[in-house]
């Protein structure tokens, strides 16, 4: 930064670069510096801020990627992987889940209520999911929900509907933790959908055999976001360049869930102008991670992944290189975020409902006033609309029908209405909603992610 820029005052701290300091501005800026150093000394904060440990709560701290485990190559490279068939369409309009789906949702809902919700506040602060939460998610089978049965998973047919219902149920507990426990499953599901025999045989046993082997399921993550204004996920700035024996990746991925402990990444990069997915093991040279916490979904341990001349072998490409796999992946991830929006929005509705009935003002419960009651009614109406549009998209995916339009509409509706629900959730609790005594402020922060986040989860 040039001296002129420093003197100008703009271009930093969210101040547009066109802003200039006047004499009073200089004086205030000087005073501010003094005040800061006094504070640091008085409270001993200086030492705290110089803590030399990596924590995702802080940005700007770089570490190399987790060395992780080695994945032993298995299977044959040219052979297509195992695929599950689409669900058989019955042609009947129906809002009832299958018995299997309902059983699964019941188990997940219990886990969300008893494990995720109580852990949510602290996980949000710590920017990490507790080990117990992650372990329990493996016991339920969350990481292998979308993995074909033939490969040791639990999916007999395309499980997009089940995945949607599960993500919704989890996010009712907590969205950040839901993302944390779903991230490895996103990678496993992607391997099931697009992996070659070799990719499936190499990576999936670590997911499917985790419980028996006593090893943990690898932290894995689907990294598609980039730190770009007006980010268009279909045109990633991260590049892949062909070399004699593979590819070299360069670029930066933002909001990478659980990046700090991830052992396997799926990274989106532009290959010859077409967006493509690459499998990148964390032990590969050239990967650096920084904390990248956002306003919400913090329990997912968001990081920024920097790829500097990262060399991957030719078999690192996941799916097609014509952009089709990547685009499908983007859509399925968006569907996952819609499902998460449903759960968290439901949590808001369920929380404000008893609150407005017990909170009194002017001698009666505030729920007795139309201004309050109508806000609750609109939450219920829009949430149900979001749910139906999302379910329709999911059921199309499950049946193998093109869902481009339906996913786009679900994403738009969920982005708009879920944020409104989050906003009204805080508003209905008034000042109390603004404090951390109540979870609505966290849901408000989490729900802003809908419509922004790409990748990360997949159904």
């Amino acid at each position, binding site marked *: 930064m040039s001296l002129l820029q420093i003197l100008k005052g703009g271009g930093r701290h969210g101040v547009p670069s066109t802003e200039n300091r006047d004499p009073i501005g200089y004086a205030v800026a000087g005073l501010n510096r003094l005040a800061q150093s006094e504070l640091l000394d008085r409270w001993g904060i200086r030492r705290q801020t110089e803590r030399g440990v990596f924590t995702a709560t802080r940005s700007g701290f770089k570490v190399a990627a987790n060395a992780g485990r080695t994945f032993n190559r298995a299977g044959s490279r040219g052979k297509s992987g195992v695929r599950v068939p689409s669900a058989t369409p019955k042609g009947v309009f129906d809002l009832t889940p299958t018995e299997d789906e309902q059983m699964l949702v019941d188990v997940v809902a219990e886990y969300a209520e008893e494990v995720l919700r109580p852990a949510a506040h602290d996980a949000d602060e710590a920017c990490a999911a507790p080990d117990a939460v992650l372990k329990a998610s493996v016991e339920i089978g969350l990481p292998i929900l979308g993995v074909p049965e033939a490969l040791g998973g639990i999916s007999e047919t395309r499980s997009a509907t089940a995945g949607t219902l599960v993500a919704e149920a989890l996010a009712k507990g907590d969205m950040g933790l839901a993302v944390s426990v779903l991230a490895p499953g996103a990678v496993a599901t992607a391997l099931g959908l697009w992996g070659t025999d070799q990719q499936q045989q190499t990576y999936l046993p670590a997911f499917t055999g985790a419980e028996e082997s006593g090893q943990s399921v690898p932290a894995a993550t689907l990294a598609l976001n980039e730190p770009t204004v007006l980010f268009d996920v*279909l045109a990633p700035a991260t590049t892949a360049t062909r070399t004699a024996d593979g590819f070299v990746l360069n670029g930066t991925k933002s909001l990478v869930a659980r990046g700090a402990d991830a052992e396997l990444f799926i990274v989106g990069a532009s290959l010859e102008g077409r967006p493509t997915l690459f499998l990148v093991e964390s032990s590969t040279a050239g990967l650096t991670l920084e904390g990248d916490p956002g306003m919400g979904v913090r329990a997912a341990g968001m990081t920024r992944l920097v790829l500097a001349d990262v060399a991957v072998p030719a078999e690192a490409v996941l799916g097609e290189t014509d952009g089709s796999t990547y685009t499908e992946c983007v859509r399925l991830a968006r569907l996952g975020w819609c499902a998460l929006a449903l759960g968290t929005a439901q949590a808001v509705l369920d929380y404000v409902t008893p609150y407005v009935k017990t909170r009194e003002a002017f001698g009666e419960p505030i729920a007795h006033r139309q201004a309050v009651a109508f806000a609750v009614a609109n939450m219920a109406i829009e949430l149900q609309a979001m749910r139906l549009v999302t379910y329709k998209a999911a059921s199309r995916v499950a049946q193998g029908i093109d869902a481009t339009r339906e996913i786009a509409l679900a994403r738009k509706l969920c982005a708009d209405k879920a944020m409104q629900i989050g906003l009204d959730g805080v508003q209905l609790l008034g000042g109390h909603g603004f404090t951390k005594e109540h979870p609505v402020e966290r849901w408000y922060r989490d729900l802003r992610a809908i419509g922004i986040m790409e990748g990360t989860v997949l159904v």
Partner: protein
Amino acid sequence: MAINLEDPKKLVPLRDQVHQVAMNMLRPISRKYDKAEHAYPKELDMLAAMADGLNESGTSEGAGATGVRRGADAGDKTVKNGSNMASVMSVAEMCWGDTGLTLSMPRQGLGNSAIASVANDEQLERFKGTWASMAITEPSFGSDSAQVSTTATKDGDDYVLNGEKIFVTSGDRSDSVVVWATLDKSLGRAAIKSFVVPKGTPGLKVERLEHKLGIKASDTATITFTDCRVPAANLLGSPEINTKEGFAGAMATFDNTRPLVAAMAVGCARASLDLTRELLTKAGVVIDYDRPATVQSAAAAKFLQMEADWEGAYLLTLQAAWMADNRQPNSLEASMAKAKAGRVGSDITLSCVELAASVGYTETELLEKWSRDSKILDIFEGTQQIQQLIVARRVLGLTSTELK
């Protein structure tokens, strides 16, 4: 059982058939009757005969504004896509053609829905083939339908009706009127009953027709009842004043008609969306489902938002009908559907006019007409605010005295 929200396979042929009717019969005369308010759309007679034929043959599964009867075969656990879904899907298609003309369809009036929903078997048979309009609103009240002041006084084997009803859709053209009247105003809601009054009954007089913002093809009448005598057997439902049941009997009709009005809003809005998509495309606007709305043109982003809202409204409407088909209580969902479809219908039709600029505002296209027609759909059969009130009371578990 499995979640599936596609249009039911067995109803797709009906939907497509009605779409053809809407496109080839209603659209060509749409502007004509928007201009010729109060002129009788004679073209509809042939269409109504065709609809009757379909109903007779049973192939239509109750296309049009037929009511809802819940079968007694409660033991049957299979998922049904029946007459309620068929009705909302075909009404939506008809209103894609023209909302005013749909409301003018002979023998498909809201009164017919009431008869079909609450009449006993003898009445069903006796009123078969009648074109019944619905008379609830009075000059002194709209939404607060417990305020009915038209009286019905028992006199021998008859009831004698006295009062004034306004906003009676098809009030002039219908063969009979389903009239809400009170047996005893001091007993409140429970005393409100509905009566089928055939046209030509002495004392029934159509006073005048309204001039309106939209749905001009549909006549909206003021009807007075002066010592109007109807047989006691024309009372729909139970003649007892059951204060426990209260208003429930009369209000039940709304659970069945609200999804239909939601379907009207959905159909009308889709007409605007379909045309606007083409006009925008011709104007060089690309609507991309994969790229973020934020990197597309403002028009494309607006279109995506409208289509997303539309999809929500449509599916809420289907849900309410599906629940009725499967004998699930759907009062909450019916109101959700109408609230969402009503407001989305206004947003879409008005925004499409804005997007199309003077092409939308002038009578060059039908966009301006649809934005006038849609407004009533957020008002009649329970306004937006009434729907919110119903939803709020249900969600919050509050009574009408707690949440006024």
